[in-house]
């Protein structure tokens, strides 16, 4: 168990009562603003003392109000990447990166400076002052600074929230590499479904200070009701695939998943590389007969596993497609007219253009 949290805390009118465990290499704390995500990471990092409860990281108890344990933040060895970076303005990038190392016992220094600098692509910034860096560069340096303190867990509190889409796209690959290297487990706070679909291996969904769902990312993402409750109707399935071939004449790439082949806009990934693909529930159309004469290139045959109520007029249909579970959001009317029921064979149709960069992310061999 990497992370074991069971805390209660009251701050003015806001009451947090969170209990969850995670063994994920990247656990996303997900929920709308004010749901208690930052309060939880602050309690894990030691910036906040919860009223009641217990927090253990990698088996080590950091907080236990029952046993009167409260390890001060400088002895926790929990890295923290803040939303605003918080680089030290009076130190250059190199000294910012080395800051945590000064306080790490020699025997416990594992992170290699060159490796981290290389991983984050910040070698050319070492002699610069934080004030001269762009937002994306600052966040990469902040991640490097936390890593070089050799933490047992890395907390990231919406590290990309202040960045525009282009800068986010610049940082995602670094977080993916970090996750797939697996040296440090990560807890990521986010309120973006696209972000957690791309990065998370485990998800904890929070709403108004309570955990409403937690578990492996593919399981949580398929359950649209969790997200509609949280006020975000962005549910969909997360499946793993690898690049089968590129069709350069059409600007397309063909992916192989357990559910079948998927044709998507041309990707830069080499043949054979693994990806995670998000199929948004609202981008999927169902047909009870094999479709003909359609412009959509992706047709996945499968069996209806279950029907879940979503919003008033819609139903989420869970499909088993050759070992992958995907979910389609259809209207209640379609369910009735097509006679959809569990066990019925159907075809899921997805337009290739439904795959944009935020629906596709690199995946390591065991990131799911």
């Amino acid at each position: 168990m990497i992370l074991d949290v069971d805390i209660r805390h009251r701050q003015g009118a806001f009451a947090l009562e969170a209990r969850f465990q995670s063994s994920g290499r990247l656990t996303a704390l997900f929920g709308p603003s004010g749901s208690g995500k930052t309060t939880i990471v602050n309690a894990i990092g030691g910036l906040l003392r919860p009223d009641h409860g217990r927090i253990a990281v990698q088996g080590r108890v950091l907080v236990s109000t029952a046993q009167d344990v409260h390890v001060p933040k400088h002895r926790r060895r929990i890295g923290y990447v803040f939303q605003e970076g918080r680089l030290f303005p009076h130190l250059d990038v190199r000294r910012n990166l080395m800051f945590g190392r000064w306080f790490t016992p020699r025997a416990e220094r594992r992170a290699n400076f060159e490796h981290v600098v290389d991983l984050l692509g910040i070698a050319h910034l070492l002699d610069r002052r934080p004030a001269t860096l762009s937002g994306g560069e600052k966040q990469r340096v902040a991640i490097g600074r936390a890593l070089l303190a050799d933490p047992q867990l890395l907390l990231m509190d919406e590290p990309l929230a202040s960045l525009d889409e282009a800068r986010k796209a610049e940082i995602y690959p670094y977080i993916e590499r970090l996750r797939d290297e697996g040296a440090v487990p990560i807890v990521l706070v986010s309120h973006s479904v696209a972000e957690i679909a791309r990065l998370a291996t485990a998800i904890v969904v929070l709403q108004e200070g309570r955990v409403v769902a937690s578990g492996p990312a593919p399981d949580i993402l398929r359950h649209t009701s969790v997200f509609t409750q949280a006020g975000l109707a962005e549910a969909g399935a997360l499946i793993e695939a690898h690049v089968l071939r590129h069709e350069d004449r059409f600007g397309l790439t063909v992916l192989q998943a357990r559910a079948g082949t998927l044709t998507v806009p041309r990707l830069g990934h080499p043949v054979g590389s693994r990806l995670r693909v998000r199929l948004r529930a609202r981008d999927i159309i169902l047909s009870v007969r094999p479709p003909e004469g359609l412009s959509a290139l992706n047709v996945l045959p499968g069996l209806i596993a279950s029907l879940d109520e979503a919003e008033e007029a819609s139903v989420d249909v869970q499909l088993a497609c050759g070992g992958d579970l995907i979910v389609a959001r259809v209207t209640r009317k379609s369910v009735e007219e097509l006679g959809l029921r569990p066990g019925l064979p159907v075809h899921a149709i997805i337009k290739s253009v439904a795959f944009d960069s935020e629906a596709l992310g690199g995946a390591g061999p065991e990131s799911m």
Partner: protein
Amino acid sequence: MEGLSPEEWTAVRLSLKVALAAMAASLVPGIAIAFLLERGRFWGRQALDVLVHLPLVLPPVVVGWFLLVGFGRRGPIGSFLAEQFGIVFSFRWTGAALACAIMGFPLLVRAIRLSIASVDRRLEDAAGTLGAHPVWVFLTVTLPLILPGILAGMVLSFAKAMGEFGATITFVSNIPGETQTIPSAIYAYTQVPGGEGGAMRLTFVSIAISIGALWLSEWMARRVRRAHAP
């Protein structure tokens, strides 16, 4: 205008010694008190705040009189220090330095306190999560960030000490070579016929030292700023 007489040189040297000693001696307590007042949450904080600021609003002669009563040879603190440690303030240059330090203390504390208030405490939290003990956080993050405020406070304290007159003359009198600083010497010149020349010379020296101190502090502040930002 002819050069300074040996007596005038003595007054200038003594003034510099007294002002530097006053500034140096009040630096560490000044930083500590500024921290207590800005960050501390304890009973009696308001009272401490008032006490520190008293020299700013009291007539200097009153402060000098309190020092005379408290730190004089027969005063409770003065006699204790003299018996236990052999430290004597009354009618010595150390007494002048004590008077100057106390008069400049509120200025020093105010400047440092302002800079502490402007420190982003989230940076200190960040340093904590990187494994830095609170003492190290202070030395490696807080102190460098408040350095401009400390420099400003030091200059104010030094300048105040160079100009201090009322408390000094009340506490340690006006003894040439021991407690006669530039202001006391100027005062002495104005009390005797034909002293205008000496008063004028010392006035120019005083102006030159003050401008020099201001220039030095500006130069240091610029260096610090350059080290902090691009």
